[in-house]
């Protein structure tokens, strides 16, 4: 355990310095390398880094191993900076009301700052107003709150989901390019996408990011695209140059399970993968990517060669997905960096507490596959 922790800390420090450098934020960079150096003596808290602030952090849920990495990043930043953060969150991402209660409780504790991954962007607005009145700075991470009251949210640390979705399309397209080029309205090919739900902003943006990029790439190959399946995605992509299903060369089919469970996600995946013209499929979060893998246990259709089977691409991590990549079922997946988001959230809160200026930090989606899974800038994000 200890060894592992050490590796994670070291590597994440490096990631951080790179990310910080690319963001042109020299302060962050030096702070993190300080952290890297003081890591060995983290027992005495490294309290030389400034005042010992206390922050309240609210994650969306403990439903996914995704948050394991985020909490790890939070703890890591705390160790480095010698600050304290209490992480809390509802049992389920859909327990919006529970989270509101937790935010309000957090405000009552008068912390030096609040880190928030909001379950529901519009529901937290009142609470954010209260935080602003109480003079408690808030940093949103993972999910932004667009209509946040003036002066409440100081910065947002979040993955740009649209571009992360696009990363999946960009990496999938070259593999299936030949198939796409050979497609016509009489010999259509089908690209599937399974999204966990049609209401969460993250998933919506990610799903649409993939669809839009795929439409753009197919357009580059002179192919017409139709989007079918879930009403939301069909309607949302109407103005992106799609055509009627009959005229299309390429069909993008979007499946959304009735409940966010693996069994139903796998049914959606299976429905698409059972179709003869399906050449690729994208599961846009951990649950749906595992749905694709589960469906394949029965169908046995996924392959890394488009001539031999369906090309699979996932999102986020988790053991089953990592195994799928290692076993040539997925060609790769896109990972966010929950660890970095948690880490950056605390860093930003600390800066605010120190009176420094801060700005939004957009986080990238990173493509990973068999070849780079062990790389230092990727591995820490690939939680089990």
């Amino acid at each position, binding site marked *: 355990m200890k060894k592992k922790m050490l590796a994670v800390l070291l590597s994440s420090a490096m990631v951080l310095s790179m990310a910080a450098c690319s963001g042109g934020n020299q302060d962050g960079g030096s702070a993190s390398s300080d952290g890297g150096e003081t890591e060995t003596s983290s027992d005495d808290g490294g309290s030389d880094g400034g005042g010992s602030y206390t922050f309240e952090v609210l994650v969306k849920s*403990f439903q996914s191993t995704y948050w*394991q990495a985020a909490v790890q990043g939070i703890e890591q930043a705390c160790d480095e900076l010698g600050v304290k953060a209490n992480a809390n969150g509802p049992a389920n991402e859909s327990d919006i009301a529970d989270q509101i209660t937790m935010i309000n409780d957090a405000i009552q504790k008068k912390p030096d700052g609040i880190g928030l991954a909001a379950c529901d962007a519009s529901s937290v607005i009142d609470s954010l107003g209260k935080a602003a009145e109480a003079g408690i700075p808030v940093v949103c991470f993972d999910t932004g709150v667009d209509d946040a009251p003036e002066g409440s949210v100081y910065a947002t640390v979040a993955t740009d989901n649209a571009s992360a979705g696009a990363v999946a399309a960009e990496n999938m397209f070259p593999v299936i390019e030949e198939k796409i080029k050979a497609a016509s309205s009489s010999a259509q090919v089908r690209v599937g996408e399974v999204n966990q739900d049609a209401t969460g902003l993250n998933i919506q943006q990610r799903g649409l990011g993939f669809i839009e990029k795929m439409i753009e790439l197919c357009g580059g190959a002179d192919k017409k695209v139709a989007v079918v399946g879930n*009403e939301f995605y069909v309607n949302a992509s109407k103005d992106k140059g799609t055509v009627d299903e009959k005229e299309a060369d390429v069909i993008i089919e979007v499946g959304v399970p009735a409940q966010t469970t693996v069994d139903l996600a796998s*049914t959606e995946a*299976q429905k698409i993968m059972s179709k003869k013209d399906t050449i690729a499929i994208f599961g846009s979060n951990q649950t749906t990517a595992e749905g694709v893998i589960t469906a394949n246990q*029965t169908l046995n259709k996924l392959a890394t060669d488009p001539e031999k089977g369906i090309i699979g691409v996932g999102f986020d991590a988790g053991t*089953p997905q990592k195994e799928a990549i290692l076993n040539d079922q997925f060609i790769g997946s896109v990972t966010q960096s929950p660890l970095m988001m948690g880490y950056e959230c605390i860093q930003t809160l600390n800066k605010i507490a120190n009176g420094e200026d801060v700005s939004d930090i957009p986080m990238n989606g990173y493509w990973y596959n068999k070849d780079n899974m062990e790389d230092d800038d990727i591995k820490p994000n690939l939680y089990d």
Partner: protein
Amino acid sequence: MANKKAFGKLKGREAMVLGIIAAMVILFSVLSSTFRTYPTLVSVLDISYYITLMALGVTFPLITGGVDLSIGTGLVSYALIGGFLIVHQGVPVGVGILACIGIGVLVGVFNGVLIAVMDLPPFLATLCTCMITRGLGPALCGGFGVSWPSAISADGAFRNVFKFTSDSGTVIPIGIVFMIVLVGIMSFVLEHTRVGRYTIAIGSNKEATRLAGVNVKFYHMLAYIISGLFAGLAGVAYAATYATIYPGSGAGFELDAIGGAIVGGVSASGGVGSIVGAFLGVFVICLMKVGLPFIGLQANWQQIFTGIVLIAAVLIDVIKKKK
């Protein structure tokens, strides 16, 4: 045999549910060419395992006139703890499985004590244990999800109990064989042993059963222990069939099982029901779960449709009773 009229009635109900299943299979097959394939059948069976196991168990509390709402969040919780022990604490898979089942039994005992000994209404008591189990798993496992060892890993042999992949890559859903064996065993328990007889008796008239000198508290409790035991088994089946167990999920799973049992003729007011009926009823639910997406019905409509079918099933009972 012992009970010609009641038996005859149940037979009718089971035949009706079989008819519904046949009609659904035909309908879905006509509407979707991809539905009528072998992998789809396997997928229906995959989904059916954990729901069937829950239904076999929850039929007992239902027949006593109660209900067990804790099985859904329970099974996820047990699977989470079992998986946590295997993956993070390094215990052998077998021990993890036993832990999963064992905790299920313990929660069943807890429910049983609340209901049979302390006289809490079953709905309330198990609603509370539903909340407890929902938090229990994540609390004990640090709040994070767990993936049990996969089929290809060294410790993944247990998955083959439900879905056996031959060397040639053919998938054989042998789990259904075990389900049928369990249906046989539980049918026998319900119809030909004292446990089953007293379960029905309690659902029929608890006070009269007590006055007959039956240890009502024990057998009432036993119904919930059976339910807990099968929730634990369902946890194993769920972990074996699917990849990652997510903490906090599982709420609503119990409704699939209870709904299935009721479709299969188990009366929510107690005293009436058969294991075979519950088993068949579960398949109506599973066919809808798999079939509705295949015929192109989108998420929201699937839920509406499922709700309507459940109302229809309960209505049949109410109308029958009125006649």
